[in-house]
């Protein structure tokens, strides 16, 4: 694909995964170059979450290879730890730690995983809170913030580990409509800075403007993969057309 953009950050080769008897990922092949922004869409239950959760080993694949920044994901715990500290992940329901303040949420991993002095970690945290435009909420608890603010904190928390790759799993799906934009704006900012991003979302406007490539998944398979313009204007497959009709009709 876009080999011009640089070396492969993520390489997924012939990957299969089963949940018991259920074949959830079927022969997935995907190469993501450095700085590339990929949007993944598809009907609910098609395996989008499972696929990106395999990239930081929240789920283990059973067949094929996944290589992240030159490190292959196996059962080797050291390699898993190494990959996890390079890959940030943001979830649909934020998953902030409710017993820690916003600042403590941000400092936890850099301090304990990167062994960064607390003062330095706090400085970096405040810097990222500024970038997601909520530095004044640093000493509040997550429960005191709105959904949009919590999701921005969650993004800042991932960024504090200075990841090379960011995974987003339907991060705007749990938000009230008026808060979607503030979160998408932060993600657009990240894209502008050249972050490698895999974004599961149904925000087609975001896909059109930000993505280098859009991937459509159904029943555990990658059905179609194209740059956004072609993807939206001339979908090749029947299933993609049906899906886009459904999603764009409202």
């Amino acid at each position, binding site marked *: 694909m876009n080999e011009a953009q640089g070396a492969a950050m993520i390489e997924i080769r012939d990957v299969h995964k089963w949940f018991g008897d259920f074949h959830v990922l079927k022969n997935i092949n995907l190469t993501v170059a450095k700085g590339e922004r990929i949007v993944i869409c598809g009907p609910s239950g098609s395996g989008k979450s499972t696929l990106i959760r395999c990239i930081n080993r929240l789920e283990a694949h059973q067949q094929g290879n996944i290589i992240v920044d030159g490190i292959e994901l196996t059962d080797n715990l050291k390699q898993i*730890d190494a990959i996890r500290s390079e890959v940030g992940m943001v979830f649909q*329901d934020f998953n902030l730690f409710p*017993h820690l303040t916003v600042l403590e949420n941000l400092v*936890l991993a850099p*301090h*304990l995983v990167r062994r960064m*002095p*607390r003062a330095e970690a706090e400085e970096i945290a405040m810097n990222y809170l500024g970038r997601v435009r909520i530095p004044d909420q640093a000493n509040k608890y997550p429960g*005191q913030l709105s959904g949009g603010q919590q999701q921005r904190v969650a993004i800042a928390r991932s960024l504090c580990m200075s990841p090379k790759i960011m995974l987003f799993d339907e991060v705007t799906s749990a938000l009230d409509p008026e808060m979607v934009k503030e979160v998408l704006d932060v993600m657009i900012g990240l894209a502008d800075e050249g972050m490698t991003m895999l974004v599961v979302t149904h925000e087609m406007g975001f896909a059109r403007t930000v993505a280098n490539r859009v991937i459509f998944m159904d029943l555990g398979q990658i059905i179609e993969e194209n740059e956004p313009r072609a993807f939206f204007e001339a979908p090749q497959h029947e299933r993609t057309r049906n899906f886009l009709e459904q999603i764009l009709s409202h």
Partner: protein
Amino acid sequence: MAVETTDDRVRNTSFVFWSSSKYRTKFYEVLVLGLLFASLYWIINNVVTNLNRLGIRTGFGFLKQEAGFDIGQTLVTYNEASSYGSAVLVALLNTVLMSLLAIVFATIIGFVVGVSRLSSNWLLSRAATAYVEIFRNMPLLLQIFFWYFAVLRALPVPRQSIAFFDTIYINNRGIYAPSPVFEPGFGIVIAALVMALGVAIALRRWARVRQSRTGQPFPVLVTSLIIIIGLLLVSAAVAGFPLSWQVPALKGFNYTGGFSVIPELVAMVVALSIYHASFVAEIVRGGVLSVRRGQVEAARAMGLRPGQIMREVIVPQALRVIIPPLSNQYLNLAKSSALAAAIAYPDLMHVLGGAVLAQTGQPIEVMTIVMGTYLAISLLIALFMNWYNRRSSLVER
């Protein structure tokens, strides 16, 4: 009612008083409390008058009189010539000892079983489930009888005691173990121990500050253990090992010398611990399950190790859910310890509800003491747990 305007105002004010739910509630509260106190006064007055007419003594004067009976386990000096007051103290201490030991063991067993139930190891989680279902579904009194009559009283007589290394003996009269005898010079060892503990505490604080400043963790536990054991050995060597053991020996019908525990205490502590641990296990399991899966996933995604996730994410959130029902369980345990009377362990219930009651013939006073004491124990537990709860849930959600 003559002039419309003023009349309306008057009616309005009285209407406001009765319609204000605040005043109405207060009024009923005062009324109920008044009636309660009036009836209490009436009952007590009646009882005292009747007792006086029958020539039955009243008051707590008996506490200073000689009790005249012996008690099988005394944590403070007590003999037949001691007062009823001393007997109450001995009984109270026996209740406290039994309850405290059982609370500690029930907590430890409960946490282990509760966490095991959540284990992905099939055998372990099934064993833990079996434990919970067996012990919480049988009457506590039955379990006390089981441990006392079927296990401990069924042990051999002293002459055929089960012996471990010829120093520890177990028979149907109790457990006998060597007791330490401190010889001159032991003070040095104690001083060394105090010093080592001080160093360990300072080390912990230093390590915390250092990690906060540099991010580097320090193996506090291992280093502290080495320091403590090292200092203890060195000081003991310097003082010429100033400690010897008094080993129990068979004299007449039983072992004397050394340290002994009566079977009634063992039965009570074992039964209370095992029974209440099954409830603690469920409380712990519920607490851990209350931490949402996403919390652990987010922590894993950031690269935290399993131990760190446990310490920083799961435990602080689970504790908030665990502590309130856990305090409740401790209160239950302390109260259910009164079942000790059934196997004649000399606790509050047995001593006061038995010998003291029978000899003084003053049920009202004796029962007042017993009730007051249990109430005080419960309140102390509740106060401590409330304090701990506040401390661990200071932060908001």
